[in-house]
């Protein structure tokens, strides 16, 4: 590996509406190396990528490319300097051939008298593919016939092609944001082979991923970001998954923050039970009992199967194996309304899209999940709908000009509260909270924790998918730890005996 620095970022600061997304982070990339970048949600990984590629400007700090100051104003400018990015969502047109995709928008270069010289284009495409070490991809093949890893490589080839021409030494920097999220195991292996071929040719890669094992496998050096700060920078030889995870999650539990004084001991009564539950390709052999008045936390990295388990409980998906027993009765749901009839309701993760109907009023949204109970002889009582709305607006301190205001006119935080109001108003006894504090500022987080404690005090049971490990431990009575679709551990989390993050991490990774 050569030791020339290709790119470096120094003291990058970025804030959005008062919250600091990046607080003076640094990043160096040498020629021909893969730099892994890891961190929890909101750690600032994506923000830095966007700054490097020129989608957003940094607040302060400098970037240097080949020793010269570098400040792109848009991705095209970054491409012209030799930096390209492959986005998480695939951007190829699947019905066109590889070659057509590589030169999409540049067909003019191959035109002779207004007609495209395909032979010339495909010859050129083959050259581009061999540049990234993919001589074996036939440029005449349609993208739809390729597996995802190969498609990913075509995207990389496309990016390399537009960047390398511009850069003075023909070396470029490729940013890969979660490139493996759509790939299966063998496809990931293949992608890694290709990335290695790429670096062998002297190009460099920044690899952003949630999956620590993959980062460890492919990277030469790894940066860990936490809350917008640099929490570590190490050679891959010095890193293990546990070390990385510890750096990612950082500080220990603060008891007041999670209202630990209000944590109650759950009752004996079992409200929900999973027996050997499984969903093909997602999770299997899941066994547990949820008691009345209990907060059960699910921990696991992305792809561990915890999200999918929630989809099964709330009725959005049907399990393939095993039994789901609700209040002593064996059930199987095919739609969420059936789960709601049994008193199970989920607060979805994408609340703006799945949680509220933004074109309806606040009162109508709050009444969405319990319209049946507000009716007399089939007729919904407008009076009760509005009384209910007034009550919840007061209790959750929702800032709105009135119960008839459309949800779309509320601020993001208040839209979140409307979702909570709806779920609380539904009087479901089992509430599944899927990342309840995602995208919520610190003050509102504490408010939400208080709400969860109140729900449990009323005798509801909660399944919690925490946004952070700390939150999951802090709020739960008990945590289940998942890895690769299996439950790998179960720990009690009583007020005075909260498990340490390290002990959980060891089961997660």
């Amino acid at each position, binding site marked *: 590996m050569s030791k020339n620095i290709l790119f470096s970022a120094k003291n990058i600061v970025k804030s959005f509406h008062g919250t600091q997304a990046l607080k003076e982070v640094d990043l160096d990339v040498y020629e021909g190396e893969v730099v892994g970048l890891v961190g929890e949600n909101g750690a600032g990984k994506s923000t830095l990528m966007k700054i490097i590629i020129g989608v957003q400007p940094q607040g302060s700090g400098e970037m240097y490319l080949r020793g010269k100051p570098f400040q792109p104003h848009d991705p095209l400018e970054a491409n012209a300097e030799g930096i390209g990015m492959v986005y998480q969502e695939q951007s190829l047109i699947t019905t066109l051939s590889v070659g057509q995709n590589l030169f999409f928008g540049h067909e003019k270069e191959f035109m002779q008298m207004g007609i495209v010289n395909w032979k010339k284009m495909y010859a050129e495409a083959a050259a581009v593919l061999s540049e990234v070490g993919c001589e074996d991809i036939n440029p005449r093949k349609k993208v739809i016939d390729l597996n995802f890893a190969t498609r990913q490589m075509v995207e990389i080839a496309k990016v390399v092609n537009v960047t390398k021409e511009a850069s003075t030494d023909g070396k470029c920097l490729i940013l890969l944001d979660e490139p493996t999220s759509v790939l299966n195991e063998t496809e990931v292996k293949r992608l890694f082979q290709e990335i290695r071929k790429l670096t062998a040719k002297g190009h460099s890669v920044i690899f952003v991923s949630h999956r620590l094992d993959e980062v460890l496998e492919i990277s030469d050096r790894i940066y860990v970001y936490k809350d917008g700060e640099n929490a570590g920078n190490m050679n891959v030889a010095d890193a293990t998954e546990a070390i990385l995870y510890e750096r990612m999650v950082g500080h220990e539990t603060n008891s007041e923050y999670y209202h630990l004084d209000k944590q109650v001991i759950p009752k004996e009564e079992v409200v929900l039970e999973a027996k050997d539950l499984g969903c093909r390709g997602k999770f299997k052999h899941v066994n547990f009992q949820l008691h009345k008045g209990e907060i059960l936390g699910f921990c696991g990295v992305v792809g561990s199967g915890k999200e999918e388990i929630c989809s099964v409980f709330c009725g959005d998906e049907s399990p393939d194996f095993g039994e789901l027993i609700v209040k002593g009765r064996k059930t199987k749901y095919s*739609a969420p*309304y059936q789960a709601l009839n049994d008193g199970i309701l989920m607060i979805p993760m994408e609340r703006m*899209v799945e949680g509220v109907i933004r074109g309806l009023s606040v009162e109508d949204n709050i009444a*969405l999940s319990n*319209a049946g109970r507000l*009716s007399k002889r*089939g007729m919904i009582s407008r009076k009760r709908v509005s009384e209910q709305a007034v009550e919840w607006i007061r209790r959750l301190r929702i800032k709105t000009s009135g119960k008839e205001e*459309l949800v*779309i006119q509320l601020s993001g935080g208040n839209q979140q509260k409307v979702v909570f109001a709806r779920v609380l108003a539904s009087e479901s006894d089992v509430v599944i909270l899927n990342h309840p504090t995602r995208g919520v500022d610190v003050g509102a987080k504490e408010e939400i924790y208080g709400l969860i404690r109140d729900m449990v005090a009323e005798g509801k049971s909660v399944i919690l998918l925490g946004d952070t490990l700390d939150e999951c431990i802090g709020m739960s009575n008990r945590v289940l730890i998942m890895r690769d679709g299996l439950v790998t551990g179960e720990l009690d989390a009583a007020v005075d005996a909260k498990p340490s993050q390290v002990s959980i991490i060891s089961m997660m990774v």
Partner: protein
Amino acid sequence: MNKLKTNKAYFATYFSMAVIICLVLIFTIMEKSFINSSNINNLLSDTAPLMIMAAGMTPVILIGSIDLSVGAMCSVSNVLVVSFIMKFKDTIYADWFIMLVTFVTTLVFAVIAGIILGLIHVKLKVPSFIASLAFMSIWNSAALLISNSPISIPKKLWGTIDWYKISIGPLGYPLVIAFLIIIGYYVILTRTSLGRGIYAIGANERAARMSGIAVDRIKITAFAVNGFCAALGAIFLMAKAKSCAPTVGDSFTLMVISAVVLGGTALIGGSGNILNTILGVFIVSIIKNGMNIVSINVYWQKVVFGVVVLIAIAINTDRSSRSFIVK
């Protein structure tokens, strides 16, 4: 009250009212007899079948779907009801009983057809416009297969369909029934969980599902209701003409959809008021009646309707792009 919401609701109503007044003025200037009482009576009684079908189409469009088979469904029901009558006319049963049985059978058939369309749309996830386009072809041909020429109702049974000519003041019996149906639907749409589910699904189907609304069931219900209304419209057409014709409903598809859209219901779903569908229906039937009065060629009439639909959708889309619900 939310100002935006009310302004918008009023806008849809006033706009449609203004269009109706303009149309009446234009047609009266072109042909004085447009405004005389016999034509007005004619117009009002002709409006009933269209209004019933538009009432059925409104919930379908509110959930963000569409049913292009409504006219064909009307044709096939129209032929079915008469062929049932012909089959049973010489039995020993009382005339009124024969009529009742044939009506009920036809309505049940249409509801089942609607449910099947709904199931195909919901369970097989076929877009409703393409599924209903296929059904349009099926029902059009089915109507012709059952009877490829018009059949008249025998004179001895005319007594049983005389109710169609009864008037209550200026309004014919059929129009009163159509109004009652619209009012009934209005109550269902605004005051029951089914109705609120329809708006919720149209506005955000995913969120509606996750909120515990029985999305599939509600969507299928909307299609079943639409089938019912198409068949009821067909029965009205039969009673009016005292005969059936295998293509009688075909021209209704476009008229029904234009009426609903002119009434301010957004084609993307989730927003609209079925009471405004009444205004949309009158716009359509005034244009149709007026064009007949000023004797515009039938083929040109179809050109005009095509243009009307395009204008209606253009105006409507523009309004809903601000994505506020009209309740």
